[in-house]
């Protein structure tokens, strides 16, 4: 089947402005959008630029806006996109575009790093493992699945319009430790999230939850963090 893929191209080395370019590629319905991009790059236009690595939805390299929604190109099948119509592909929004579908990820990782996304403990380390019940382990299971692809953060209207808000992923990253029974850094982490550009900027639009390719209930995680801030307990 021939599909038409319309891609927002941008290369400041060549032209100053982004422009749409449409490619016709022969695809199977079970092909991924990543396969379509590869076919274009490998057979038609070697200058097409995007990031990718694992190609099965675990490395988080290839988040992009496909038909107006943030998804991973390697996890989106052509048959699920109505290939009768043109398929549009553009970079995720809210981060500076560097070339074609490649955006500057540094602001995104800076936000993640700012919430102390690591286990904080005090006192002597135990000789064996710390004991944790499976129920306590399950409490933060959902947010451990995050692959840092930025699909959530770059789907958030507050993030688009506000250069300061650190976005849903950073809250997910903090949630993973706040609700870990082994962690002792909750107070510090909650203070960071309590900032005026912190968790309270969330307007509960659920874009992030819808965008997450790992099925994390991002909005719910954000609400749990807000509740922890109000009641000061987790």
């Amino acid at each position, binding site marked *: 089947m021939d599909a038409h893929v319309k891609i927002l191209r941008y290369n400041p080395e060549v032209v100053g402005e982004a422009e749409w370019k449409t490619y016709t590629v022969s695809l199977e319905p079970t092909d991924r959008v990543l396969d379509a991009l590869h076919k274009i790059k490998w057979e038609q236009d070697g200058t097409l630029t995007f990031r990718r690595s694992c190609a099965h939805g675990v490395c988080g390299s290839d988040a992009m806006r496909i038909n107006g929604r943030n998804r991973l190109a390697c996890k989106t099948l052509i048959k699920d996109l109505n290939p009768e119509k043109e398929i549009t592909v553009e970079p995720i929004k809210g981060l500076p575009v560097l070339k074609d579908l490649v955006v500057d990820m540094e602001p995104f990782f800076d936000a993640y790093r700012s919430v102390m996304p690591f286990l904080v403990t005090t006192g002597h380390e135990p000789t064996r493992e710390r004991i*944790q019940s499976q129920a*306590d382990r399950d409490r933060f299971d959902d947010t451990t699945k995050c692959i840092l692809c930025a699909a959530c953060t770059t789907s958030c209207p507050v993030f688009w319009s506000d250069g300061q808000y650190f976005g849903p992923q950073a809250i997910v990253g903090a949630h993973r430790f706040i609700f870990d029974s082994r962690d002792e850094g909750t107070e510090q982490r909650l203070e960071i999230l309590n900032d005026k550009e912190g968790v309270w900027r969330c307007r509960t639009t659920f874009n992030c939850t819808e965008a997450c390719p790992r099925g994390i209930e991002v909005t719910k995680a954000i609400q749990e963090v807000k509740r922890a801030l109000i009641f000061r307990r987790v």
Partner: protein
Amino acid sequence: MQQHQYDVVIVGAGGAGMRAALESSKRTRTAVLTKLYPTRSHTGAAQGGMCAALANVEEDNWEWHTFDTVKGGDFLVDQDAAEVMCREAVDAVLDLEKMGLPFNRTAEGKIDQRFFGGHTRNHGEAVVRRSCFAADRTGHMILQTLYQQCIKQNVEFFNEFYVLDLLMVGGRATGVVAYELATGELHIFSAKSIVFASGGFGKVFRTTSNAHTLTGDGMGIVWRKGLPLEDMEFFQFHPTGLAGLGVLLSEAARGEGGILRNKDNERFMERYAPTVKDLAPRDMVARAMANEVREGRGCGPDGAYVMLDLTHLEPAHIDAKLPDITEFARTYLGVEPYTEQIPVFPTAHYAMGGIPTNIKGEALANNDDVIPGLYAAGEVACVSVHGANRLGTNSLLDINVFGRRAGIAAAEYAETAAFEELPSEPQAYVVELVEGLRNSTGEERIAAIRADLQATMDLNAQVYRTEGSLKQALVDIEALKQRFTQVGVQDKGKRFNTDLLEAVELGFLIDLAEVLVVSALARKESRGGHFREDYDKRDDVNFMRHTMAYREISVAEDGKETVNIRLDYKPVVQTRYKPMERKY
């Protein structure tokens, strides 16, 4: 061009690289260079677990683990290294737990453990629960946890810096040259110690569980320096790749009770491995599957695959223990694992061979001599703890144990050594490589050459090999080398030139495919992952030894250079265990 100076430079930011960085950055000034972002590394795709004889759920000890590792590797394992790995496994798991890794838990709140292929109690009596896991995303959790610790420890990363050359002065490693993807700029890193932790080269095959980026860069760089590569003929084909795609479905599926079936719905592994059945080591299961297909008992319209059956497991159990892989089956094949069997076929998965190192992670220039300042750990290295066939979970263990060891050794050396003056024009080789490709006017497409390389490797150097098939692969590779001289790069720019990147990667793949095939041709026996139909028995008299391949250049009178591969051999270290027939 920019210059940098660090005590330790680590190339690669997967599990081994970051584990090394956590050690070396505590002791000395360390930089980690990665051609991706750390969290994109393929450690994150590992699923099933990391074995350690914690004995949390049943009796176990590290000696049993060592025996299984040696036997699983078809006795080509260096037993001193396996002992180190299995003994330190317990601490390696506990270290990760203390870093925050969210392991699944037992009823008492301890780290839970489950069955895995080839891991047995008391030297093969029965399967044993040894694999520590976090659902079927253990690698993801290891990668995330190590990255989180690197953030905590302020480890310095250079993301999307593609290392293309190793600098050597008088036999000592003194630095690397890196190409910055964002700008196309070259960077010279002077260092006292360099650790390669850049992963494998699964992309020489078409059907593979490996990421697009696993192109053997580290091995290729070292190879081009005339340094040896060990046991390159031993490549693991993981039994359960999604048919046609190669996407990995963890062995944990069988560890949790999954069964392989042929078109007659027969549990065929009972015939091949009566004691451990579906939990036999990967090389045996992969061959059994390929054999079922060859003998006409495959499934599907072309009889090209077999089925992985999880339908007898409780959906809740599947959701708790195997959530990701069942989602892969749904997403990519439209199969519902609760009620339908999943089409699977072996997929190229793991390089047992690589840069030879000793148990400290020091790289070797030959059978005995250490290369001062050079270290390697993880899939890029060959210690050799995996021998002819790696046991499932032992790669996550390897990266943690030997990543740590390499990081410590590199830092300790850096504390005593001085910086060496770099060679004049240190960037010369990389400039020639990169600009040669960028300015090439050739008509050959990168993707076409790569596809042909992968096709011949899948056809001729996969689960079953013969002299004829390997010779055919060599003829094909020779032709591809010629075509590669005419390769064209369409993107002429500096900024994020991934077209150029793919051309460079392809050059490494072609080099390594040739080493693999030449090594395989010379090994006239069958052992572990290397199966020769024309020599279908293990031959301990002639081949109980590691292959050491060297790249040598001879210059003819007219100045024309020819590159040859010379093979040498290295004895296997045997301590406790005498080779025996491998039955399961």
